[in-house]
């Protein structure tokens, strides 16, 4: 079931909320939410609900063994249980997500013909596997308590964040289930939740789905072997850059809004990442919960920065490469991850060199900030080309176009419109017979407007900063005065209602979220 479907908005959500707030007993409310989450999950494919439930039970009882063993102080036995737990989780993930990728590569390398299997990737398996591995590690480190099976199930399966995050940790949500006001109807939370949900819905169905066709035209054409010229390749890459951001941050907003409607605050997942002036900052503001997960459960166990700068860079690249592979079983994802690992390594090295050269203080002027900002944005956009492409050849075609190797081509009509300039461009080698995009003007307009929104408009959480919209403390992120702030007023109610109605009208063809694939 999709958040952006009429079934979810007009049937599932009202029923879940009504029953949740009608039940007087907190334990019953938890059971109800677990049941609703299972139903939500099984709507996609009920066969994989069994796998999901088995995974929940296995991990829950593994954690119980770890907790019981803690009293006996048998560290080797605990480590063994933890290793078995992680191994089983990764094996399931490996089989469903990477088996065919592995066979494909083995066949190609050794020129043999192992049979690939028809495996349907269970929805959200990457997310719930990571969340449960984190829980096992936290339990091993004695950072968790013993929770009831129902609370554990709700922690993992909580439908707002089940499918595509935010990836939550036990200390972030389970404590909230124990709150005495957990199932008490609260106008404040419902209003804030509805507002965040509506903003997310609008971002997804109006903005992300609106710009999506421009990215698809270019990437599909590249996939079909067509030549992609300079302007078209940039249009495609930038369209996808904005599509992915508004799609995924829209989903995260919806998840946070839904959680808030159920009196649960979820952690922040996006905070205007395209405004960043370095890749290090970008990963602190893009898919924040995944970044923290990779840092705490992969980068630090690998050694982190404990063994010098070279080791730190190797660990960063390894972490990001595995992070890329987590997104999908394909070389494009591996390259995307490795590329970001390399970016981060270069960025850390640059900072180190800068500090050594100018130990007192590094001055950031407006001009240098603009340069760093553009460099970061272009680097991220290049990364998204690999992320979106079906294969490396598609990515190569787009990248060749972006660096101008395929030349510049504009639509035929532009020659007449441009007049003298058209003639000049033509003499410089610019062709005027492009037909790839249905409307170049529309794509330029979309990209321009979304650039302005993502670079200079306050994000959802800045809008609502006064009402603690998410779990994180946002004061540390408050960098400038926000002129436009949300208030529980009639005028804001009208604006949000209009956004909701517009979303309803645009979502007649419910489309999946991009991150459902991961």
């Amino acid at each position, binding site marked *: 079931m999709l958040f952006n479907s*009429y079934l979810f908005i007009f049937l599932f959500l009202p029923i879940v909320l009504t029953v949740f707030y009608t039940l007087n007993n907190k334990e019953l409310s938890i059971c109800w939410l677990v049941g609703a989450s299972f139903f939500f999950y099984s709507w996609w494919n009920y066969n994989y609900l069994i796998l999901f439930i088995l995974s929940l039970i296995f991990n829950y009882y593994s954690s119980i063994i770890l907790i019981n063993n803690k009293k006996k102080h048998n560290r080797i036995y605990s480590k063994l249980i933890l290793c078995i737990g992680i191994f089983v989780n990764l094996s399931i993930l490996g089989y469903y997500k990477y088996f065919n990728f592995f066979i494909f590569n083995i066949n190609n390398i050794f020129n043999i013909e192992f049979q690939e299997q028809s495996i349907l990737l269970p929805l959200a398996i990457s997310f719930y596997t990571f969340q449960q591995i984190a829980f096992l590690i936290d339990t091993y480190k004695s950072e968790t308590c013993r929770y009831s099976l129902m609370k554990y199930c709700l922690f993992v399966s909580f439908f707002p964040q089940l499918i595509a995050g935010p990836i939550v940790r036990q200390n*972030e949500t389970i*404590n*909230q289930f124990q*709150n005495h*006001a957990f199932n*008490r109807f*609260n*106008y*404040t*939370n*419902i*209003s804030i939740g*509805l507002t965040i949900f509506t903003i997310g819905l609008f971002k997804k169905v109006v903005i992300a789905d609106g710009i999506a066709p421009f990215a698809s035209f270019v990437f599909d054409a590249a996939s*079909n072997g067509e030549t992609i010229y300079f302007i078209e390749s940039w249009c495609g890459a930038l369209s996808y850059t904005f599509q992915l951001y508004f799609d995924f941050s829209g989903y995260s907003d919806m998840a946070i809004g839904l959680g*808030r409607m159920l*009196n*649960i*605050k979820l952690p922040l997942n996006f905070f205007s990442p395209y405004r960043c002036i370095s890749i290090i900052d970008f990963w602190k503001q893009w898919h924040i919960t995944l970044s923290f997960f990779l840092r705490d459960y992969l980068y630090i166990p690998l050694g982190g920065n404990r063994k010098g700068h070279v080791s730190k860079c190797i660990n960063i690249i390894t972490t990001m490469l595995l992070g890329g592979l987590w997104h999908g079983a394909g070389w494009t994802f591996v390259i995307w991850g490795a590329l970001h690992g390399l970016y981060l390594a270069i960025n850390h090295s640059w900072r180190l060199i800068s500090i050594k050269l100018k130990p007192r203080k590094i001055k950031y002027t407006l001009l240098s900030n603009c340069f760093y900002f553009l460099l970061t944005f272009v680097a991220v956009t290049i990364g998204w080309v690999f992320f979106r492409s079906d294969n490396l050849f598609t990515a190569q075609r787009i990248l060749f176009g972006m660096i101008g190797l395929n030349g510049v081509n504009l639509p*035929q009509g532009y020659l007449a419109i441009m007049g003298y300039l058209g003639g000049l461009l033509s003499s410089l080698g610019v062709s005027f017979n492009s*037909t790839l995009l249905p409307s170049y003007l529309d794509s330029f307009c979309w990209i321009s407007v979304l650039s302005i929104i993502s670079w200079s408009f306050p994000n959802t959480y800045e809008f609502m900063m006064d009402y*603690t919209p998410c*779990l994180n403390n946002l004061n540390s992120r408050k960098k400038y005065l926000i002129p436009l702030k949300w*208030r*529980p*007023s*009639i005028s*804001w*109610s*009208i604006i*949000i*209602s*209009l956004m*909701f*109605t*517009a979303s*309803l*009208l*645009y*979502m*007649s*063809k419910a489309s999946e979220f991009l991150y459902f694939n991961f």
Partner: protein
Amino acid sequence: MNCSKKVTNKEASKFFKYYYSFFIFNSVSILVIILCFVIILYYKVGPYHKLYAYQINKLNKNQSNIDTIFIGDSSLGQAINADLFNTISGLKSINLALTGLYGLAGSYNMIKKATKLNQVKNVILMQTLDLISRPVAYDGYLYSMENFDDFVELTFNEKILLIKTSINILFSFTNLKRIIHFFPVQERLKYTIENDYMKQVTIKDRKKKYKNIRIHINKDKIIFLHKIVSYCNQHRINLIYIHGPHLNNINNQSRQDIQDVNAIIKSTGVNFINKSYFFSPQQMGDSLDHIYPDFKDQITEEYFNYIKNDLVY
């Protein structure tokens, strides 16, 4: 982490008002949307409602005077001159072509309407080749439904799908636009009727438009063809299926697909005329399945020759 931190009474009252005003505004909006939908259904303001109204008017004017009907999409509308067909065949026919949006579902409703008003002997069904690639046209069915009986006769699954389609149409932004266009001046619509069908648009560079055409077959898409066959058998009407004219390079690209399409159509038991229906780019108009208006008469004669032995006189 306490999510329900204490708020002041003044602020609680603001949230209370905000919450209810949100619901009131949205309820009003949804009521307006529903009203638009009711208007759309009542006046049948589909995407090609002017064409639909034109064909229905034609049918009403020729009541009890028709023995042959041409039913199909724009490939038919642009290809067959019913007056010429009447002259060369001696039959009394009309061309009731709609568009691809109405699909076989719309064709089915048109056949039912036409046969209620006339003693129809022949139904000539002509659709574009890639019809089987397209989703079942429940929207076309909805826009051409005459009464509630048309809904009742559907199977349970079809009813569910029709309802789902209705919900999608209900929340369609274009509904508002259509109503705005429909009420003040109907003539404001972009297309006009010419030569007994919609006027063709001019395409500057046809070759570009025609590249990479493929047919992706989905056998489930012909449920309404089964209904048409069964309806015609029940009413002892001679049903003939023939593909609309197409650009000849489709044949080169999709030879196997076309054979598969033909096999699926034949499997319904319809009298399928498998003749050459491919034409050169010079004979084609604004789309790969629209004959250029100047060739309409020539194509009508060719199609008459294809089907003349199968017609009931």
